[in-house]
Every structure is written in C-alpha cells, then in structure tokens.
C-alpha cells in the first residue's frame, strides 16, 4: 500500500494549476485527498504528477450574488457545514453535509473534490445533481460551465474536460419559502450510503409550489434526478407523493453488491425518496403555518 512514485506541485493560481495539468497527460488534481490518497495507496490511481490546489486563495471563498451562492472548489466540507450562507440559501446542501463522512474527513474533504471525484454514493454530488447546480471548470484560461443534472455519467466518471480544473460550484438561492428533505441509509453511520435521496420543494406566495427537485444516489452508477414535477399544483398528499415516486422509479436501474441487493436499493430508494419529499412538504407547511 505505497503509491507509485509521483511528482508534487503546489501552484499559487488557478491558471498555474491549469498549465501544469495541460503539461502532463497523467497529472491529477489533489484537493482534500480523502478519496484520492487511499486510491494512491492502493495504486488504483497512478498519476505521474499531483497538483495540490490547497494553496490557491481564490478557491477557498464563498461568494454571494443576488441569485446564487458560489462555493470555491477548495472549500472544506466542514467550512461549508458551518457557513451561514449555506444554511440560509442552500438548505438541502446543509442537510446533506452532516451525512458526508465523519468530522475528521469533513475537516479535510472539499465540496468541489467530492463533485469532481463523482462517487455514485457521494451526498454532495447528489445535491448538485438534484438542484442542477452550475459546475465551473477553468480550461485553457476560460471558464466552462456544466449543469450538474447531466454532469455525472458513471462511477467516478463525469463530462468534465480532462485538462480542466474545477473552480467553483454555484447554487441558486432557495426561495424564502421552501422545504427540503435528505435521507440516506448505510450499514453504519457515515458509511458509503447504500441508498440516498434528496428533495427540495420551492414555493412562491400566490403561485404555490413552483418546482420540485428530487434525486437519488448510490442506487445506480451516478446520482439521478427523478422527475416528479407533475406534483406541482397538487395538494402533495402522501398518496400522490407515493404514486409519483413509484412512477419515477420505474425506469431506474439499480446496482447490486455484497452489502445490498438491487431489489433492496430499489425498494429503499423509493421509500427514502417518498420520505424526503414528505419532509420537504412538511417544512413548507410548518413555514406557512407560522
């Protein structure tokens, strides 16, 4: 369990990092290292160059615009968890972060690293896909923006450009009235989830429910959005939620491994998606009744 020999560089700017990346076909970006370092030790990843982006100041900031919250790629998960901006404007991410690993891994692990790594069971990736967050890569000196809803295409596989460096995630601010729900199950607390589900229901005074975002993780090769927008305009009762989720789950293909059968993943994904939607609905009811 010793990595293969590699070079190590610590650029000071994003463009310097991109230059290093372009100069070596077998270079890899090192962010928090919570997935990459074990993979190096197991020799599952064999880069010739590691580009450590931990010391690029502009990657560690939160930026609030009128409509969005931008999170720098090197923002640690623990910092995001503590951020008032995240709590106020990205409540679904705030809920999910408590499920990501353990306090020591969140202290090192980054929000951007989790998205770039694209583990099918990653909570942060699920939230970005569910909400359709914007993922920005710097490529050849220009920014390319990807919609997280179709960014993930397989286990540890994305459509990110090979020579790009993830610089930030941008989340639309949740409306003043909205509800969220996040559930996951794992054999042990904070294990890689066997199944996870994330939901956000957006509400606007006068027009009611404006959009419903629902996603499930860990059940297939990547986090998947489920379309339940037909629930908009309905009273969102339990039966309607269950019907919509069952219908949306029809097309979902689930994977099987030692820890859970495909049938288990399907059954529990359905259940967790229902529970997440109900939680989101109940939050809105609570808000409106206050």
């Amino acid at each position, binding site marked *: 369990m*010793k990595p293969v020999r590699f070079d190590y560089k610590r650029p000071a700017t994003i463009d310097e990092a991109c230059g290093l990346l372009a100069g070596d076909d077998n270079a890899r970006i090192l962010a928090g290292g919570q997935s990459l370092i074990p993979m190096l030790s197991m020799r599952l990843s064999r880069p010739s160059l590691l580009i450590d982006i931990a010391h690029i100041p502009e990657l560690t900031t939160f930026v609030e615009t009128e409509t969005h919250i931008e999170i720098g790629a090197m923002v640690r998960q623990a910092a995001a968890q503590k951020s008032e901006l995240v709590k106020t404007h990205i409540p679904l991410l705030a809920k999910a972060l408590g499920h990501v690993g353990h306090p020591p891994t969140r202290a090192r692990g980054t929000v951007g690293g989790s998205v770039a790594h694209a583990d099918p069971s990653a909570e942060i990736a699920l939230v970005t896909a569910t909400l359709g967050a914007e993922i920005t890569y710097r490529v050849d000196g220009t920014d390319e923006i990807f919609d997280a809803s179709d960014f993930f295409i397989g286990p540890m596989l994305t459509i990110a450009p090979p020579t790009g460096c993830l610089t930030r995630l941008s989340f639309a601010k949740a409306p003043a009235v909205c509800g969220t729900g996040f559930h996951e199950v794992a054999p*042990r607390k904070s294990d890689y989830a066997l199944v996870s589900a994330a939901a956000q229901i957006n509400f606007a005074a006068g027009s009611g429910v404006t959009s419903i975002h629902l996603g499930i993780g860990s059940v297939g090769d990547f986090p998947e959005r489920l379309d339940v927008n037909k629930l908009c305009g309905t009273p969102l009762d339990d039966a309607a939620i269950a019907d919509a989720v069952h219908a949306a789950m029809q097309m979902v293909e689930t994977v099987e491994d030692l820890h859970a059968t495909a049938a288990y993943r399907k059954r*529990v994904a359905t259940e967790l998606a229902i529970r997440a939607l109900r939680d989101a609905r109940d939050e809105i009811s609570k808000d409106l009744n206050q």
Partner: protein
Amino acid sequence: MTEQKYKFLSTPRRPVEDRRFVAGRGKFIADLDRPNMLHVAPLASHHAAAVINGIDASAALAMPGVVDVITGAELAAAVQPLMNGLNTPNVRRFPLAVDRVRYAGEWVCAVVAESRALAEDALEKIIVDATPQPFILDAEAALLETSAPVHPEHGSNLLLDRKFVWGPVDDDFDAAAHSLSFSVTWGRNSTVPIETFGVLAEWNGWDQMLDIWASIQMPKYADQIARSLDLPGNAIRVHYDVDVGGSYGVKRGIKHSVLVGYVARKLGCPVRLIEDRLENMRAGDAHGPERKFDITIAFDQDGTVRSMKMRALDNAGAYAGRAPFQLGKPISAIVGPYQINSVAYHALSVTTNKTVQEAVRGFGQAPTNYAIETAMDRVAKYLGMDRLALRQKNLIRKDQFPYLIPSGSYYDSGDYHAVIDKVLAAADYPAMLAERDRLRDAGMMAGIGIAACLEPSGGNSSFEPLLNQSNQTSTWMESCQVNIDALGKLTARIHTTSSGQGHETLVSTVLGEVMQIDPELIRITRPNSLESLPGNSPVGSRMAIMLGGAAARAGEKLKAKIMAIAAHRLGVAIDQLRYEGGDVLAHDGRRFTWDEMVELAHRQYHNLPDGMDPGLASFDIMQVPTGDALPVDDKVQMYPCYSFEFHLLLVSFDPIIGRPDIHSYVIGHDCGTVINPAIVSGMTYGGIAHGIGAALFEEFAYDTNGQLLTQSFLDYLMPSSHEVPAIQIVKHCTPSPHTVFGQKGSGESGYLGAPAAVSAAINDAVSGLGIHFEKLPIRMSAISDAIAAKTS
C-alpha cells in the same frame, strides 16, 4: 461476595499499560529501525487456484534498490514445512507457494528491497506464468468425492472427520417426545487488529544468532521458527519487549517469520516485513471459523432437552492451519450451560480455495454457542414455551457443580440462575417486553435477544490429543520469575508478549496482593525467549488463571523464604509469625521489617538460616489445573474453569430499511474472582462490539471467481461507536475451586454470546412473519428483502 477480602485484587485500579499507550509511547514493530534494514513485500496470487509454470523476476531484480526476489521453490529447498498439528503430511505449507497457488492472495514470491515502496514497485515487474486450475469455495462441495482436492497429493479435501458419541444418544432420542432439525451457518470473520502483523529479523553470523522482534500472540513461536529454519532452539532469540497492537488469536506470523528469518540469514541484513491491510486481510492469519452446523435436538413436551446431534463442517481454507482444532475446543462446553444428557458430534474440516483459517477469539466456541442458543430458541418456539423459561428449566443448577458433561469435562462452578435473575432485574425485563410491544405497535419490527453461554478458560490443549492420537501433549504451562533487589524493590519477569490483555497489571496486582506491596512499586519486565522460562502464551483465555497463578505461586515461594529468615532471626517458630504488609510480626509484638529482611538476604549470609541460599528470588512453572490426563474413550477434561455469561438485548428496525438499532444491552458476567475490574469490563465491552460485528457486519466474503471481496475496511465493516450501544454489565462472582484466587478467564467474554443474542433478537423481531435468518452476518439488505418477500 469475595471482593472485600482483597487489598488490590478486584479493586478499581488503572491498568499500568494505559499510561504508555494513551501517551503514544508504546513500542511496536513499526517503531523499530535497524541500520541497513531491508524490507519485504510479497506478491499476491490473482488466481484462486493455479499451477505455477515459472516466475520471471529479472526486470524486478534489475531495478535500483531491489536486493533479491525469493520464490517458493528457493524457500522450500531451504526450510522445513510449517507445522500444522494434524497427521496430514501431504498438506504441506511453506511461506511462499510452491508449484501451485491455492487461494487468491497467496504469496507467490517476495521482493526484498531497500524500502517497502521500492519493493512494491518491483512486484509489478514480476511475471508469473501460471495456468489457472479449477477451484472450490464451498465446504459441502469440497466434501464431494467428485471435487478436485486443493492438495492433489493429499487425495481429498478432508482434513478432519471425527465422530464422537458421548452418552446414550439413541436411547435419549427414542425416549424424547419430540425432535427437530435445523441448520445455521457462521460466516467467516475475524478480530481485525489495528496493527497488522509485523516482524523484524536480524542474523548475527559471529554469534550464530537470529534476533526476532515480532507482533506475536503465538504459542511455541520460537520453537516453530527454529524447526522450520533448521536452527537450534537457542539460536533464535525472540524479543518479548515489544507491544502488540491487538490480536485475539490472529497474530501468529509463523510464515512471515520463517520467510523473513530465512532472508535475514541469507543476506546478512536486518529484514522487516509489516503486512499492509490488504495483505493482512487476504493472506495474513486473519480469517476465523466459517462453519455450517446441522443440528437435531431431542426434547420432551415439558421442555427438557435430552440429547443433541451436531454436525459441524468447517471451511478451513487452503491449508490446515489451526482450523481443525477450532472444532475441538467447543467439545469442552458442547452442551453449553445446559443439562443435556448425551451428544453426538461430527466434526469435519475441509480444504477449499480460500484464505487459511487461523485462531480467532474463542477458538471456535462462539460459533458453537450460536448453534446451541439457536437450538434453544427453536425448541421454545416449537413447544410454544417462553425462551427464558426453557433455558431456566435446562440450566445446570448451582448444587450440581462440579458438573460432568457428556464429553468428559467437569464444569468447575457457577450459579447460572442467579446471574439471570440479576440481569432480568437490572434490565427491568417486563419493561423491556413492554417497550418491544410499544415499538411493534408503532410499526417497527422489534425483538428481544437472549443468550446464555460459557467461556471455557485456562487454556490447555487437550483438543489436540483428542483429535490427533499421535499427539501426546498434556503439558500446557506458564511461568513467572520474581526477584527482590538489594534495595528492596520487586521485579517480576513474564515470558510472552501482550496484545492488550494487561499482563503487567495482572502480575503486579497479583504479586502486590500476595506480597502486600503496592502494585505501583512492582516492576514487570519481558526478557527475550532465551532468558525466559517456558510458557504457552496468552491463548485460550488462560492468563488470569495461568500467569496470575504462576505469579502468585512464585510470590508465595518468596514469602515462605522471608518467613524462614524472620523465624531464624527472631528465634521463633514460623507458625508464630504473621506476614503483614512486607514486615513479619512475631506473636510477642516484635517486628522484623522488610528492610532488615532485604539486608540479611543480600548482605548478611552469616545471619541466614543454615544452608539457605542468599538473595530473594523465586520462580514458578505452573501446569494448567485439572490438566493431568490424556483423553480416554474420546473423553477428556479440557479447560479447568468455565465462566458464564447471559445476554439480554432489545433491537428494533424499520421493516423497509432493515437496519438494526440496538436499544439496550445488558450482560450478566461471572468469571469468578476478578483481578482488575477495568480490564475485565474492557474485554467484555469489546467482546460484545466484536459479537455485534459477527452478527451484523463482518464477513470475509468471496465472489464466484474465488476473489476476496472484503479486502479493506471499505467492505469489511466493523461496528463503530455509533453501532455499539451503551452496555450494562451485571457482575456476579462464583469463585473457581481450581485457581489461586478463584479467578476464571474473561478474554473472550462478550464475544462468545453476543452473536447468538443479536441473531436471536432479530429473529424474534421477524418470527411473526415466519422468517428465520440462518446465516451470520445478517445484513440489513437481507432483513429488508426477507420481509418484503413475506409481505408483498
């Protein structure tokens, strides 16, 4: 209760080892560094079975920093096969595969290099020309005559096939009103130490001495290395003054040590091999029993269990290892804590193309306890009888001890009913039942698990001559040396490594009690093997009994000498003297102080009794109590002492999610006189955590290609602090009549009953649906799937 009569024993005292461990000042193999030390990395087989046609290491050898590549062929020509204890001369095992690999992960060859990283780089350059062969993973399939043997020279996969009939089994079955049969399977799991195995060897040609530092928990380790390397016993010097980062049976390390010893001698350099986690999990000594039980049990309408037929089929993996003998130890408690009049036991061990099975905590007892306790639950369910009442009816009563079980062992002492009553009171059993019903009403699945079982302790090896008649070993000893120096301070030597059992605390507490000296002032040292007296190391839950016993006896010998010096000095008979806190008091009030005694013994030979040797030293080599005979008629007294434990817990889970949540866990524990309460409680807490792992999470699972799926902590899941509930220990003390203070063993406590209890709780939760989980671990996915199959 006996607690009050001791000054240091059974009192809450902090284990002395804690200080260095908490401060990070332990000394482990990875902390040792020798000048010019070389590092070894083994190449793991990708095949579950293959014939090795050739190994091309030329590219590896050409790399800078690579010193040597050792193949199985080279090693087999230079060393003796590793011992296994059975009469299976054609099941030969060497540290590296010879001609053939028999499991995925088996070491094919080993690189020696200037660093471990370089050695791993070189592994990738080695080309092994191998032809894959058919392989077999399932034990029942391995038994079939049509199955290819893992060792063709051996002719079959059978390592052990012994049938025992103890008592009138047929008569008891004929007389019984009912019988029922079932099967349960114990999944392959282990103890998984934090520190993987490591060994450092250094050959000194001028002294003709092989120095070894190793993280071992292994009886006769030095002897086995010497035999395998064809060296005299006194040319191996094993240094016991290293810390071992966890074991519970799995730190055996013979193959690693023979390999490293050979390389150290060949190259004349210090050589170190420390397993990484992958090596530990796929090819270390990490795997424990994998056992299928077929049980038929005979009982009356009133719940009296008369007789049991048990077939136990163990999947030993690719070589003999210790697996077959792990079918032997449970013979010492084959009826559990129950009055079962007769037993038929069929013990089968087969080779398969899996990793070799070695000793794990309890040495096969925990699986057997799981089978027995499942049987009790099945009988209760069949009769519609309360599980607790059934057990209480069949438990051995306290007035029946010493109690002779059908297989030939006497249980020493116990009061099982009293322990259970205490647990029921402590847990508020009626409230627990009410809580279970409340949870069920709320839509959860909820169940109560109970399990009663024994921990045979004192560790002799009577199962070896019982299973292998050519083995005539009845000696199973432990030793301790004690010296009082010229300044009056006491030092004791122990002759083994410790892997967390707290032997320094054990010996200092026992000697403090005997000598009436503050244990804090007693020094414990660990000399090397050449400066040691014989011992059998901490296995079989034996050290409280054996090392504690030897230390106490050595102390008593010293005390007898002190009394003789005092009697001579004061001019009175010994029986008119009283030993008190290190001083000796005469009946007339005169006091002969410790300091005077030290002065006489060390400097005033002229004032010692005639013929008495100077100095104040003693030693004791103690044979295991009751271990004085070989088996007769397939029966033998195995372990001297039997600790009792009773588990009670409440579990609930969501029927769709299936993730068990343990609400409350109470264990009643009687291991006789406790020497250090913190150590016993720690063992018990850890044992229950380990048992929860065996019941719900831990398994060395293979895919259909014979590849180990669980090679790291990503997939081999152990319970964390989140999954282990607060545990309440209810203590009871029935002293053993066979030991110096009445102590029994506790090193396996908790683990021996927890898997049975957790399994019982889950089965209780689903029993209304007609579901029986018959295999451990019971994964959450399996729970949910089974419920869905019944309810959809």
